[in-house]
């Protein structure tokens, strides 16, 4: 898990805060809410229409119902920092 060092918070509190933060984000996404963090990126749901899938083992056709899947789009600062770090080495 994330080792966030923050001077004024005890280790256990950091753990709780990370959990709370992730739970809040997971809940928002589950309810179809977008999350936007400037400089980091945004989380949203993408729609996947129903399709006919196959069991890879048996080849049997199975119907897969339509669904929403979580998607992350990196923000500008994150994109640029990750990319320029690569050209520096």
């Amino acid at each position, binding site marked *: *898990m994330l080792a966030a060092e923050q001077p004024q918070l005890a280790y256990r509190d950091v753990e709780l805060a990370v959990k709370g933060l*992730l739970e809040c984000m997971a809940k928002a996404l589950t309810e179809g809410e977008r999350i936007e963090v400037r400089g980091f990126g945004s989380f949203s749901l993408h729609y996947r229409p129903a399709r006919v899938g196959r069991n890879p083992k048996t080849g049997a056709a199975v119907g897969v119902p339509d669904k929403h899947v979580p998607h*992350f789009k990196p923000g500008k600062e994150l994109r640029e920092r990750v990319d320029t770090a690569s050209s520096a080495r």
Partner: protein
Amino acid sequence: MAITKADLANALFNELGLNKREAKEFVELFFEKIRGALEDGTSVKLSGFGNFGVRKKNSRPGRNPKTGEEIPISARRVVTFKASQKLKDRVASNADQLRQHLNQK
């Protein structure tokens, strides 16, 4: 309305009793920590939520979709996110409410 850093900080304030300044700083630090790791090429695993990783992309020929003009796309590193099975299942289990909610938008 989309959830923002301020909303996340508020949730920590309401639910965990961090004071407002601590909550705001914590949210800032949390995302900065992830950015820093990805910048170093380190993947970040958040159990129950998902994994962030970095992928190297080779350069490839691209095209300006508007003009059809060919331009090379340089090699680069990009961030990927893969939601955990737990999060995917959670979203999928809420299909009915989502259908209503997202249709209203």
